[in-house]
């Protein structure tokens, strides 16, 4: 009987410990706006992409801010709003069916929602740097396709599409890209 009680006590204390671990994790997760290593790496890479691309004909010069459009909210992009790119403060815009700005200087399709392709088509032929994780994105007319190899981020570039959209891809990006077409 003693053994049974001891086992029951051990089981109960383990369950309590596990619940506490989950509760702590949830609290930390909420406090940290729930971003994973992968999201932070992706956001940092997107930040570098927009820094190493030039928008031709001074397209951005007359604008007040740089429009960074996202298919869905991602807390790892929050630090962008304190940063400048091409001399302009970055403005984060989350696209919805009702809310589509006249221009997106960069568009990151961070969702596979059917609406993503519609959004992509809306900005595909404008001076927009389009970025997606979707396989085959370059062949659909996208400019930067993200991938991974051995647990690390990789990316490929469609330079022809970039030129069509009046974007100059910096050599820093071209030299680190896995594929350039």
């Amino acid at each position, binding site marked *: 009987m003693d053994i049974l009680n001891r086992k029951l006590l051990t089981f109960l204390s383990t369950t309590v410990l596990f619940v506490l671990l989950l509760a702590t994790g949830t609290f930390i997760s909420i406090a940290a706006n729930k971003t994973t*290593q992968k999201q932070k790496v992706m956001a940092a890479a997107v930040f570098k992409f927009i820094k190493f691309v030039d928008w031709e004909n001074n397209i951005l010069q007359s604008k007040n801010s740089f429009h960074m459009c996202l298919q869905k909210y991602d807390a790892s992009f929050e630090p962008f709003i304190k940063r400048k790119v091409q001399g302009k403060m970055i403005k984060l815009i989350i696209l919805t069916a009702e809310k589509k700005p006249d221009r997106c200087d960069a568009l990151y399709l961070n969702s596979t929602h059917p609406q993503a392709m519609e959004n992509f088509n809306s900005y595909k032929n404008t001076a927009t740097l389009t970025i997606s994780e979707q396989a085959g994105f370059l062949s659909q007319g996208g400019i930067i396709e993200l991938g991974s190899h051995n647990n690390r981020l990789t990316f490929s570039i469609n330079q022809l599409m970039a030129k069509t959209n009046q974007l100059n891809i910096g050599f820093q990006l071209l030299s680190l890209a896995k594929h350039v077409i």
Partner: protein
Amino acid sequence: MSESHVNKVTWITSIFLSMIISVSANDDEENFLDISLEKILAIPLDLNAVNILESHIHKKNEWMVGYRFMHMGMNGNLSDDNQVSNANVLKDYMVTPTSMTMDMHMASLMYAPSDNLTLMAMMPYQSNSMEHVTRMGQKFTTRSEGIGDLKIMANAVTYRTRWDEHIFNIKGGLSIPTGSITERDDTPMGKNQKLPYPMQLGSGTFDFIPGISYAGLNQNWGWGAQMLGTIRTGKNDQHYRLGDKLDGSLWLSRIWDNWISTSIRMNGEWWEDIHGEDSELNRTMVTTANPNIRGGKRVNMLLAIELYAPQGGLKGQHLGFELGLPVYQALDGPQLETDWTISAGWQWTF
């Protein structure tokens, strides 16, 4: 330095490091915005778990050094899944073990010559202590301490999806008999007596370790399964061979942030009786010297928390803590039952 002092230092160091990692992980720098694109492309998207070393895959030319401390407590005897009192065991044997503790310090080194192949070497140092009682009621303790068997393994990726959401591996390894199988200690039966099988530090044989594993990952969750076998070969120079072993794990982890995750793991172990017999041991004296009651099966539930420093002065450092409890065990007994295990591990990838 005494064993308990070493254990205390291990735990205090682990807690101290975890606090530093927690603080450093909250730094703004962890957003990675101010580091070069080359460095961003070198950051792992997901983290290798400290507690399942054999599942690790590393990037080409990446090294990892690690240390893990594990403590296991055993108390009371089981025969099949039934408790057996000391009095009952002592009807058939002169001596019965009543409890045992095992402390293991495991050093590991990994290197990836390519993205699809990771090589690893693991060397344990363990200390065992077993309490006994004789039919006459006399209590005594035996101890053994030293290096265990060196394990070398290769882990090869056989299939992976584009984002490494699903990775399948095969693995193969060899256990080299560097651990002693001639440990001795004083007992009431005489001075410098040969200790029974569970108190020896190695197998004494070259053992093959084949295995397969699968790991899945999405944004917030990781999961996986692994099967590892241990196939013993020949007989050691004490004329016996430990039983073959099968070890399977299923795990699910929640990735809360880029510096913290928690996981639950079910681990099943099945191992055979010993083949042959050490002629210096008397199988009727004590249960642990009887080679025919050494097998068993056990299912453990393990809960873990893992901390990682993605940036800052401790970049690449990884800490893990795991608590394990058996939820089912059936032993060819009478044999000591496991009550709990606890472990703390540190890794540094560079």
